[in-house]
């Protein structure tokens, strides 16, 4: 029964060397290997978690971007609307002002014209008067230049008066 008989030498060497190799491997192999594997697993886990976080953040960022964009768009629309209103207002105001001014100028011009016309009429009247006087003077002079003429005139005049 050589097969199942434990041998003292083999047991002794196995205990000694197995203890030694257990110690050596524990200290110089298993500790660093398991440590590194764990560390790597943790770092992978962390990386995954932070990727997930980044994804969420990205999503949040995207939605806030969209919100900001919508806000900007509505603001732009409001601004445009305001601008359009202001423009219209300005144009109408300007139009009004121009009309008023035009009317004012027209009225002034009309007044001036009236004044000038009155002036011209007055002038013309004066000139006509003086001309008439001059003409009458001249006629009188020529009519009254001789006695005979004076007599005729008087006769004519008297003739008219008699009939009245």
């Amino acid at each position, binding site marked *: 029964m050589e097969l199942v008989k434990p041998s003292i030498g083999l047991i002794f060497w196995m205990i000694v060397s197995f203890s030694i190799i257990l110690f050596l*491997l524990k200290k110089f192999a298993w500790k660093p290997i398991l440590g590194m594997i764990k*560390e*790597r697993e943790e770092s992978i886990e962390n990386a995954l978690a932070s990727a997930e976080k980044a994804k969420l953040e990205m999503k949040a960022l995207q939605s806030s971007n969209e919100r900001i964009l919508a806000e900007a768009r509505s603001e732009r629309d409001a601004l445009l609307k305001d601008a359009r209103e202001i423009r219209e207002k300005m144009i109408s105001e300007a139009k009004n002002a121009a009309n008023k001014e035009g009317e004012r100028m027209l009225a002034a011009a009309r007044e001036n014209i009236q004044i000038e016309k009155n002036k011209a009429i007055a002038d013309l009247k004066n000139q006509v008067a003086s001309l008439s006087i001059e003409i009458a003077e001249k006629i009188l002079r020529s009519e009254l230049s001789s006695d005979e003429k004076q007599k005729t005139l008087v006769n004519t005049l008297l003739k008219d008066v008699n009939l009245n």
Partner: protein
Amino acid sequence: MVNKINIFKHFLLSASLLLISSVSFSYEPPDTVAVRSHSAGAPAHHDESHGFDAGKMILEHVVDSHEWHLWGHTSIPLPVIVKTDKGFEVFSSSHFGHGGSEEYQGKNYTYALKEGSIVVVDELDGSVDEAATASLYDFSITKNVMSMFITMALMLWIFLTVAKAYTKNAGKAPKGLQSFVEPLIMFVRDDLAKPSIGEKRYERFMPFLLTVFFFVMISNYLGLIPFFPGGVNLTGSISIAMVLALFTLLITVFVGNKHYWQHIFAMPGVPIPVLIILTPIEILGVILRPFVLMVRLFANITAGHIIALAFFSLIFIFGEMNAGLGYGVSILSLVFTVFMGFLELLVAFLQAYVFTLLSAIYFGSAVDEGHHIHNHEDDYLPENSAHV
């Protein structure tokens, strides 16, 4: 994933090639066996007319030896260290001659080999000195011890290299040897230690579990290689299996908490009359579980070696009857041996797995605190897996 499968395929392929080559190297022709066994001096078992003795040849290959037989008449002599009542003595096993037929005149006694073990003989007539032999302790560096040293050196080389690789490319994907070893380490950690011991407590057992797993696995695979430095039935040696089981027993006993011992000496909720029967069984179970570990490992690995050798013995047995028959059977033997070799590749891994798993389960039950459902699951596992 694909890469892993490829590595495994290569591994299987090279292993099967090694097995096939075993045909040409590992087995001596029957005449040498006959000469050896004759010169070893075993008159009762053997006589020349009987020819090839398969049982003897197989046993010689399976048990320990003081020399490492390579091929034909070439073997490596190994140092013999004996302690007698007169002190230690160290000499080379080559003094016993090839096959151990000669006596060696040492400092204190005259030694000889009798059926593989060293005995003290009388200088003059060569008869065994029973009294001196009884006090003789053999601490020789035998074939198994040598093979154990080789396995351990290989382990040191592999894992120190791997550890260096881990510190060198920390945080990066594994490369080379590292990527071959890492899945196994992860397997031991995630599939053996964590589920059996628990997420919180498994870490302190990892060094032992990993060392045992790789020691058993590497020496099992080395044992499947038919030529030097493999081919030794190391884990199939009862002493080696015993020491491994002893470590498991000692660790279980030392880490066992109150809860564990309470369940052994006074199972809670069990009436006293039943306890009288149950407690001795539980106490016996503490010893029995590592004992079963030992027997399982020893029997499985030894059986593998015996079967492979038996198939080749068939060639010589039939060859002695008729040369043609021998050639015919050799083809059949070869096919069966290759088949068995593949099975042994599986068994080599499986035994490492089972030994580590059961050790982990024992540790788990020893440090278990809770009253959860898994508490008694481990009681059934050894029986379930006993057939592997």
